[in-house]
């Protein structure tokens, strides 16, 4: 049985803790969070203990460290965990800067531990299927690929997402999911051009990024933290031999309406598509299998590095008010 330490007991830390409790080979042994009440709540829910000090994460009885802290702290914990010989699952983005990312990858390589970054979109069945269809040549050479990922501004503890020095805004924090999928599917990117409007909407963010891939495909990615609706994604991938299109708002297998309040028509409508295993669980299962077998994880450190590099290039272009950035 592998013992897991959860570092960061927010939304994603909680989700991973639930998964590692569910996976037969792992159990959550320890929860660490700089906010003790959050750590206590998650520890009680999983039957784990609360770390009295940060150093306990790196104790001998821990096998796996899951890092789900705000982005700027990823590298600090990942390097210490790797140095202590722990296998590391790190949420995306890998780190806040490329320098940090390289230090993490060096530490991981030196330690010889399993390291995987949470680019979970690859494990969403519609994205996995689209990837396979494209790579197998089903739609010929891809000409123009569009991806969209739309949400309200995430809250997060202390509203850290709204501090772009920490989160990198929607482009680094959320559109990186699509960047990773695009790189995975189309290969290396050559150049990037990105625009947005953060200065006019201090509590919201929106970015439009165009990417040219070395093999020729043109992609443009929409990322929004300026929405008032429910989270949604879509893609439209046009090739010389066909077209792939998906819109998360069009594929709910189950929609529930609940009546609320005095008015007869008052209520809420919640669409969903229940799955046997969530993409996050599939992701964590892959990671555990790689820890057990020593296989290379499906999202390698170098791939996560490239996704970060693309996202940071987009942020750089965006902050310069639209500047061509070569990769």
């Amino acid at each position, binding site marked *: 049985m592998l013992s897991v330490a959860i570092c960061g007991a927010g939304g994603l830390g909680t989700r991973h803790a639930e998964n590692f409790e569910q996976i037969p080979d792992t159990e959550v042994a320890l929860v660490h969070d700089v906010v003790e009440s959050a750590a206590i709540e998650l520890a009680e829910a999983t039957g784990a203990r609360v770390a009295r000090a940060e150093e306990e994460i790196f104790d001998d009885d821990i096998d796996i460290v899951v890092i789900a802290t705000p982005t700027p702290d990823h590298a600090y914990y990942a390097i210490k965990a790797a140095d202590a010989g722990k296998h590391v699952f790190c949420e995306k983005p890998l780190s806040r800067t490329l320098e940090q990312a390289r230090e993490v990858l060096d530490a991981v390589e030196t330690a010889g531990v399993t390291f995987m970054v949470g680019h979970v979109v690859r494990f969403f069945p519609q994205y996995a299927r689209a990837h396979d269809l494209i790579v197998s040549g089903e739609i010929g050479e891809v*000409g123009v690929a569009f991806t969209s990922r739309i949400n309200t501004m995430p809250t997060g503890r202390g509203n850290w997402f709204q501090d772009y020095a920490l989160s990198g805004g929607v482009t680094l924090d959320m559109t990186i999911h699509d960047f990773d999928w695009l790189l995975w599917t189309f290969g290396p990117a050559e150049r990037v051009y990105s625009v947005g409007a953060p200065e006019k909407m201090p509590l919201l963010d929106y970015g*439009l990024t165009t990417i040219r891939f070395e093999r020729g495909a043109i992609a443009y990615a929409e990322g929004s933290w300026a929405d*008032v609706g429910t989270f949604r994604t879509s893609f439209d991938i046009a090739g010389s031999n*066909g077209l792939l299109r998906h819109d998360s708002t069009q594929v709910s297998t189950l929609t529930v309406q609940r009546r609320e309040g005095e008015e007869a028509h008052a209520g809420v409508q919640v669409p969903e598509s229940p799955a046997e295993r969530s993409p996050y669980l599939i992701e964590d299962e892959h990671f555990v299998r790689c820890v057990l077998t020593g296989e290379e994880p499906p999202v390698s450190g170098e791939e996560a590095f490239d996704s970060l590099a693309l996202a940071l290039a987009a942020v750089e272009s965006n902050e310069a008010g639209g500047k061509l950035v070569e990769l």
Partner: protein
Amino acid sequence: MSTRLSIMSFAHLHADFYATAIGELDDVELVGVWDDNPRRGEEAAAKYDTRFFPTVEELFAPENEIQGAIVTSENVHHKRDVLAAAEAGVDVLCEKPISVSVADARVMIDTCEDAGVQLMIAFPCRYSPTFRRLEEIIEGEELGEIVAIKSTNRGQNPGGWFNDPELAGGGTVIDHTVHVVDMIRTLLGEEVVKVYAEIDTVFKPDLPCDDAGVLTMNLEGGCVATLDASWSRPDNYPIWGDVTMTLIGTGGNATVDLFVEHIDTWHEDADTYLWEPYGHDANVGLIADFADSVETGAPVPITGTDGLKAMEVALGAYRSSENGEPVGLPLT
């Protein structure tokens, strides 16, 4: 007494839309058709129950009393036909893009002005009730300041002369940039000051012109916008294409999908299902406004300069793609 219009060339398939729209209007008449392809012109004249004239001189002969001409020739011939109409003292509705070069567009605008005829550009999206409603919403500042726009005007490759740069002045980017740029200019009342574009030929590899284009634009007030202007819809796509916009404002957002109204339709003998469109035909409003300006002398609502500004963004996009860097507008 109805307004007497003519159509110069049925090279562009929109000529059929405009002829149909004329038929919808009580006080507008299609007096005649001229086409440099006589067979095409004769067929169109028969179809719309009007006369074919083999030469421009015969079309504009005084006894025909033609008041307005709709120019729907190949893009590169717009100048030739607009100048011929201006010489005959006839107001012109010119298909978009206005032309294929800034210099030609300027000559067209100046010649019409000197001849005392009006030049209107065909941007029918302005007559969509949805677009009109969006204008109201933005004018009413319900969305606050518009800071970003994501737009598409994707379509199937129309083939024919649209794929011949000698006649079209380019490929998909010259064809599909101008509608949405005109919509953005109209909504914001601002010009595009910078454009960056990735343009290529990918969907039909042996094509002599571009068929993929993604533009990024900066408006003078700071709004940013992308436009996917690609002929990226497969030949068996259920509809010709789309015009969509997502507008992000400081006070709210709006999404527009102008041609989404449809009934899914299956035929046993077709290899795809089809969108059977329904709803408003914006071409009727376009033709009605043109006919009204022709009849009353009221200024046309869409000017040659509007056409020039929209075309200039497309030309800027080509230059950006060639130079590998953003291009400032207006072009120098």
